[in-house]
């Protein structure tokens, strides 16, 4: 069995949640495997991250270089290619950094690439069999990947969460591979990080969110959701396509590239339930989904589902809330 490496994302000395998830994925590829964590970076932050891993990885490879102080994917790739043995299986999280690094890494490692893996079905001969989701999560597929020249695999954040917990005893410790990297230059240079604008309404502060997706169909219909939110004392949040279409401000977007919210009740209206959207919903709110497609993936994660046209359902719901309010006020 090929040697398994997990690329660890870290920031400010703190290791990303994906570190344990990658260890869990590695164990699912090979129960006997002892995956090696591999980290790039510089200075005290890198050392702190390496030390934080001793509970989940028996061996940690440290690649320190001043040019890697910020994880520029091109520089990281060049460093990894220098030190990773050919034929390795390399695991990375499928998020903005993994997506930036992994495809090119697989080319330079001359290995197989498979992305956004949600489960591992096992190893069959020279093949790794994984599970991916396609068509917005409406169907899943088993995918076979040739391992004969190694593989780069990106793993969906959260997918291996429930498998965490196997603790290893730190045997190998931190191994410094920095001297193997050599000089690093890149055609792309990091300048700065610009933080997202705050926006008019802070959706993170509401107990109830009326959240709308592409199913709202046009800008004029946003008012339907706003009316319901007003009646409920809630705020309107949304999925990404609503922001892309400029129907709502970016600050209203829930998801991995938007806001993380923790309401008590989340009404998902015309939202299919992509993992990037669900990633922004934390604290297990009571999730009510309204969608006209009974096969929409959101129904698999929601607590309660209603198969209906939201353009008819929401206005009637608003009316009912207002009626009820008038009765209670009397």
């Amino acid at each position, binding site marked *: 069995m090929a040697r398994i490496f997990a690329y660890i994302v870290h920031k400010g000395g703190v290791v990303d949640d994906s570190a344990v998830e990658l260890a869990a994925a590695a164990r699912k590829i090979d129960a006997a495997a002892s995956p090696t964590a591999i980290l790039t970076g510089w200075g005290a932050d890198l050392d702190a991250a390496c030390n934080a891993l001793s509970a989940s990885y028996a061996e940690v490879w440290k690649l320190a270089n001043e040019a890697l102080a910020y994880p520029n994917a091109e520089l990281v*790739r060049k460093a990894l290619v220098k030190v990773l043995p050919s034929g390795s299986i390399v695991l990375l999280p499928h998020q*903005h950094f993994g997506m*930036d*690094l*992994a*495809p*090119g*890494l*697989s*080319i330079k490692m001359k290995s*197989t*690439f498979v*992305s*956004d893996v949600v489960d591992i079905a096992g190893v069959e001969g020279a093949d790794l069999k994984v599970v991916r989701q*396609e*068509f*917005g999560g409406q*169907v*899943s597929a088993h*995918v*076979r990947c*040739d391992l004969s020249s190694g593989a780069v695999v990106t793993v969906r954040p959260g997918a291996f969460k429930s498998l965490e917990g196997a603790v290893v005893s730190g045997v190998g410790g931190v191994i410094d591979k920095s001297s193997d990297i050599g000089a690093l230059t890149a*055609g*792309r*240079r990091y*300048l700065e*990080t*610009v*933080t*997202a604008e705050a926006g008019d309404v802070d959706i993170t502060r509401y107990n*109830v969110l009326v959240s709308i997706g592409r199913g709202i169909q046009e800008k004029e219909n946003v008012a339907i959701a706003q009316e319901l939110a007003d009646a*409920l*004392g*809630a705020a309107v949040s949304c999925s*990404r396509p609503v922001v*892309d279409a*400029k129907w709502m401000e*970016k600050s209203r*977007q829930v998801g991995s*590239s*938007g806001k*993380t919210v923790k309401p*008590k*009740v989340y*009404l998902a209206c015309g939202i299919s339930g992509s993992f990037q959207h669900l990633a922004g919903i934390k604290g297990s*709110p*009571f999730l009510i989904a309204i969608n006209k*497609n009974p096969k929409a993936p959101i*129904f*698999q*994660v929601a*607590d*309660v*589902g*209603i*198969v*209906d046209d939201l353009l008819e*359902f929401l206005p*009637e719901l608003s009316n*009912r809330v207002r009626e009820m309010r008038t009765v209670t006020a009397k």
Partner: protein
Amino acid sequence: MEILVCVRRVPDTSENEIQLNSAGNDIERDELVYSINEPDNYAVEEALQIVARVGGNVTVATVGSEDDEEVLRREMAMGANHGVMISDEAFSGSDGRGIATILKGFVEKGHYDLILTGVQAEDGGAQVGGMLAALLDYPFASLVNSIEVLDGGKLTISREIEGGNREMNEIDLPCVLSIQTGINEPRYVGMRGIRQVASIPIPTFGASALGLDPGTVGRVAVRVKRVDYFVAALGKGAEILHGSREENIDKVLELVAAKGGLK
């Protein structure tokens, strides 16, 4: 600036209920509604806007077959100067690496300062752009959501990172960028626009024209292969309300109140 945009025709998931076929080895494709892959359309719009600012040409290319010509025409109606069909029996069944290898062959036959792809195809793996860049040894950036052309063969770009924050980078040309949705507002294309470009010839390039070794692309070179499709249970599943609309509304209100939402 000479810009190449790689585009793909995909089943539109917001328009389709995806069903498995009876054998379970594919989805039911007969009644699917196809359209241009959404981020690719943003990529074409971005290319058109760059050319409007600094001059140049936009070429749209797809690795596909006859059926895919409609997306090239659609993007030409948007304003792309040239459409190119990259098609050969030897290409069919290619995995992401195969597609990237074919595109590399095409890129090397021409001269492009900038190559754009979408972030991800509807049934793809967010891989072709990054692979193409690595095969060409060009710099690459993914999830790009703004582009500014600088003097001296460089761009300033921003990448979308977590929480809607932006990572600003400077990148040398030629390079490959994968474009994220929302970077611009793609212009509308009507039937009339499509009719206007209907008779413009679209050249086709095959394996020999691109000097590709057939052993490196298509089914024979595949390392990643879908075995079957299935419908997985992701969670415990929602309790679906089967009442009339009025009953469902009452139930929803009752639940919202019970969960502390109605005050």
